[in-house]
């Protein structure tokens, strides 16, 4: 009986702590959405308002008509989606190769992939910038950002998929191949349907990473032809603060929605033990 009471108290304290953390986690996002509907007057009350005194669409209007937000939005969606597609297509195959085939230099390839995760982006920016502006002429284009994003995503994608494939028993494909299908047939019809968690994990991580990326996009774009939303958001800021707070929060809200939807739909597949090492277990 005493142990039971003790457990009840422990759980009570735990839930109190959890609730506090949950408020800390969710509140900024809630307030950002709510503030995007506030008028200029509501933004500057002496005591901050949690909800707008009346719904004002000035921030959203400013966004669409004055800033031409729709172009950066289109760029963000296009670039993140295509990059994710490229990563998915390439790494599902490279991950499979790394997990299943034995070839000369495999250990080297694997270690090299692990090492490249550690290269700081800033070390690559200059060479990429010179390459893009002087030789390839893809500065300020979708293709420029897609090339950088998808090649960056290849590393994590390959490691993740190789982890997922190593977790599948080899005899699944062997059975299919004995039944007369080719290796690719086995891969396509037997293995890939079992890869749903892997496909979802890589898609979610790649998309969220590309969607929120700021540093590369800020350097490799200079107009609405390829500028993405995070760049537009920071460019609203002037040295004297921003002119339109509600517009800032409105961009933030637009940026927050897709990652939230993806994560909430797929959170049961989220398993960091695989993400960490690129190795099973």
């Amino acid at each position, binding site marked *: 009986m005493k142990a039971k009471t003790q*457990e009840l108290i*422990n*759980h009570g304290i*735990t839930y109190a*702590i959890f609730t506090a*953390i*949950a408020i*800390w*986690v*969710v509140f*900024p*996002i809630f*307030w*950002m959405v709510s*503030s995007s509907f506030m008028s200029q007057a509501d933004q*500057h009350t002496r*005591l*901050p308002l949690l909800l707008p005194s009346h719904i004002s669409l000035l921030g959203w209007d400013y966004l669409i008509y004055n800033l031409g937000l729709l172009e950066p939005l289109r760029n963000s969606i296009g670039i993140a989606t295509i990059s994710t597609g490229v990563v998915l297509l390439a790494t599902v195959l490279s991950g499979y190769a790394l997990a299943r085939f034995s070839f000369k230099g495999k250990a080297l390839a*694997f*270690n090299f992939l*692990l*090492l490249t*995760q*550690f*290269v*700081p*982006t*800033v*070390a690559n*920016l*200059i060479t990429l910038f010179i390459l893009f502006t002087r030789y390839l002429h893809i500065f300020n284009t979708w293709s420029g950002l897609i090339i950088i994003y998808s090649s960056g995503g290849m590393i994590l994608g390959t490691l993740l998929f190789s982890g997922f494939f190593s977790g599948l028993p080899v005899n699944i494909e062997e059975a299919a191949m004995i039944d007369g299908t080719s290796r690719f047939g086995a891969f396509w019809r037997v293995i890939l349907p079992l890869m749903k968690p892997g496909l979802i994990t890589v898609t979610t991580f790649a998309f*969220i990473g590309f*969607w*929120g990326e*700021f*540093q590369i996009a800020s350097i490799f774009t200079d107009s609405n032809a390829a500028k993405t939303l*995070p760049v537009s*958001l*920071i460019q609203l800021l002037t040295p004297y603060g*921003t002119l339109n*707070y509600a517009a*800032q*929060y409105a*961009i*933030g*809200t637009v*940026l*927050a929605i897709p*990652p939230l939807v993806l*994560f*909430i739909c797929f*959170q049961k597949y*989220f398993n*960091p*033990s695989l*993400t*960490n*090492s*690129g*190795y099973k277990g």
Partner: protein
Amino acid sequence: MFTKDIFISQTISITIEWVAVVMTLNYSFALVLALLMNQRRLRLKVHFRVLFLVSFAVPITAVWPIWVRILTPSGGLLNVVLAGLDLENPLHPIEWLNSYPLLTVAMVGLWSGFAFGAIALLAALQGIPADQYEAVRLDGANRFNTFRFIEWPHLMKLNVILWMLGIVAALNNFNIIYVMTGGGPGFATTTLYLYAYRELGSGDYAYTSAIATLLFAVEMVVAVFYVRYVWLRGRK
């Protein structure tokens, strides 16, 4: 070139401070949370797990304006709440991003990153067989000893990976520092990474490359340990 630069030694010490603060905050918070979530018969933990992932999912490049608003010295929500609780004098509001820039930015970083470590550690804790808990319970171990002799040794493998990845992530952190302070005020939050970026903006490509190479060299040391560790673990 480093010898002629009066800022580089300051930048290096800020980098070390930043890595130490971020690692301590993020790891200890994640560990405590994981231990709390690992209690048996805790029914709502699945729902809280989803909630905790919210800040991990949303990119910091989306929510930074609201953090700036919360931390505004006069009329900012945090100071208003603290003044309401009588914890600070409303006439002398705390200037979070000016007086304690590194710690404040690290707290925002904690907000956006704690869930990853917490859920990784929770997954590892759940892998401990129940009979091990039973064994120490029969030996009369208290909560601390259970942690000391069962849970901590079991977490060690993951810890090494989390620490190494955490150090490199802190060294490479750009987004959180850049959006919150831009490396300022002055040089107060300019880590090596931000410093290289700042030099890039000033057009000194050679010096940017030199700083980036220094950073790269430090990270390669961690990376070689990491690869060796993962590799040896995979061979076992």
